[in-house]
């Protein structure tokens, strides 16, 4: 497996996202630009300029026409994916830590930071999935998190719920229409911030990554814990691989502690776990800083990781990955083949 190294950013990566077809990879970093890359060969398609602060989050709509980004300059911007033009700016009082489109690209959520006397909120906008259309300024919904601020959020199946991960390690389920808090579950250790939430392809369950060194699989319907993956380092990101039942976890000790340890001890590796058996099945080395974000190709052909070191590494899976099976899986496969 020869990774492709993408060096388009001058500062640490904050999020990377594949399009629905897995052909383009978007990356954003603290250096205020967004890059679009062809995932197959690492060719850069273009860059998106306009933000005045560190970018925290990006998302692309399912038709790959619109790109949303949230940044520390207190804005959410909407971009034309094809030309790199900014077509809409929404202003907020505080930094925007997370943006995500819903399943059909008609809604966009934004998580705002709690700062300067403003409480953390989750805001929803209605989006017209057309480049030329006028986008509304009006917020369809505002959820205020008065207990612990939300750090990440995602849409569940059918855009029914908004699932939010909080700074205190809990996960909340909000009704996506009314904004009502339906459930709150202390998924991770108290005061261990949830750094990432990624939905399964059908959005019925999701994986969380937290500073408490665990990644957990939870059901979107009732927040019941399904699986958990224990690691020996704080986690920044977790992703689920389609086609094969694995999870990819990225982490490493916090950026501020990096200078105190050697890269060998830093655990700057992408870890692969088996989704069902919860065993660690392998690691992929490469970054020389903690992994801030991992993303998996929605078609399951590869994955990419973005690190504190400013690099994106795009990996395409090879033979051993596809051939790997547990003994029980293999036996089961043989049995069904015999029938």
């Amino acid at each position: 497996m020869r990774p492709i190294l993408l060096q388009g950013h001058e500062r640490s990566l904050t999020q990377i996202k594949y399009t629905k077809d897995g052909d383009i990879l978007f990356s954003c970093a603290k250096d205020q630009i967004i890059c679009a890359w062809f995932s197959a060969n690492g060719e850069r398609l273009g860059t998106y300029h306009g933000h005045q602060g560190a970018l925290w989050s990006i998302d692309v709509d399912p038709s790959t026409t619109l790109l949303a980004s949230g940044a520390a300059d207190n804005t959410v911007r909407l971009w034309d994916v094809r030309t790199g033009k900014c077509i809409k700016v929404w202003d907020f009082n505080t930094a925007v830590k997370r943006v995500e489109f819903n399943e059909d690209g008609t809604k966009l959520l934004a998580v705002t930071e709690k700062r300067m006397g403003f409480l953390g909120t989750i805001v929803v906008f209605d989006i017209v999935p057309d480049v030329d259309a006028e986008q509304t300024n009006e917020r369809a919904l505002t959820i205020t998190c008065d207990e612990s601020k939300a750090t990440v959020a995602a849409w569940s199946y059918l855009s029914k719920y908004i699932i939010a991960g909080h700074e205190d390690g809990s996960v909340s389920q909000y009704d996506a229409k009314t904004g009502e808090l339906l459930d709150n579950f202390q998924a991770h250790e108290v005061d261990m911030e949830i750094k990432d939430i990624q939905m399964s392809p059908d959005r019925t369950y999701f994986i969380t990554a937290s500073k408490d060194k665990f990644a957990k699989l939870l059901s979107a319907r009732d927040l019941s814990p399904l699986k958990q993956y224990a690691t020996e380092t704080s986690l920044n990101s977790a992703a689920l691989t389609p086609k094969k039942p694995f999870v990819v976890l990225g982490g490493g000790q916090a950026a501020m502690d990096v200078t105190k340890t050697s890269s060998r001890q830093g655990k700057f590796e992408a870890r692969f776990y088996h989704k069902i058996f919860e065993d660690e099945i392998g690691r992929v080395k490469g970054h020389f800083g903690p992994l801030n974000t991992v993303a998996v190709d929605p078609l399951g052909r590869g994955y990419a990781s973005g690190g504190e070191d400013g690099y994106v590494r795009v990996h395409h899976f090879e033979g051993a990955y596809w051939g790997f099976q547990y003994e029980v899986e293999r036996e089961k496969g043989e049995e069904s083949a015999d029938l």
Partner: protein
Amino acid sequence: MSKLASRPDWADDEEFDDPSALPPQQVTTNKDGTKTVVSYRFNDDGKRVKTTQRIRTTVVKETVNPRVAERRAWPKFGLEKGHPAGPSFDTTSVGENIIFRPSVTWKKDGKEEQTKKDDPKEKLKNMKVKCRICDGEHFTARCPFKDTMAPMGEDGAAGGGAGAGGMNGDDAPEDKAGGLGTGGGGYVPPHLRGGAKAASGGERMGGKYERDDLATLRVTNVSEFAEENDLREIFERFGRVTRVFLAKDRETGRAKGFAFISFADRTDAAKACEKIDGYGYGHLILRVEFAKRAT
């Protein structure tokens, strides 16, 4: 051959050697389908540099979704505006090959490798519980080699019926004098020395070579004028030698007649043992055997 033909005659070469002009790029197609590109440029010192590249072009056809194909043809924008198609070298590079082989026993395999690698460091770090038999990180009572191996101290302290032979007499006094610190074995932290004081010095000695006894040879009947470097030279031809310990008399500085040689690999050690046993060195015939006593 084709390259020769395309080049100007050597006699004309001088005339073309105008420092400001560069020969044009030459592209030749080889028989095996590759192309050889020879290009010239000036480097930073103003010297002419010839670059020869062999390029193999492989066309990989892939059927994709029409949406994907359409996006592939999008013009570039932003910082990439106007750049030609294909990855640019300043943003995209290919990393070194990573072997990623998922396996259930991944953790176990990895751990073994790791402990082997940082052996010396790890040993000193995690010295809290130490087995007297195998030096492992567990209590002696739980040692997996309990039934097959004798405790390490026995060799030195109990006078060892285990083939230590005549050298044992030499061994003990030196150890009591704290020979370990001086004997080229490296620094031993005080807390370890303290623990060994209660037992005989032999235990320390044993511990020293027990650590990598799998690939350690004991050489006896060594000339007293021998030097560690001489021994290293003799044994190095069989493989990587990680440690040479030659016991020396503290007062006279002369060799005491025995030495330990640790190899990185046991097979190398076995080979060396076979070859050097009976080898004449100085005026004596060396006797070589594995440092581990028979079980």
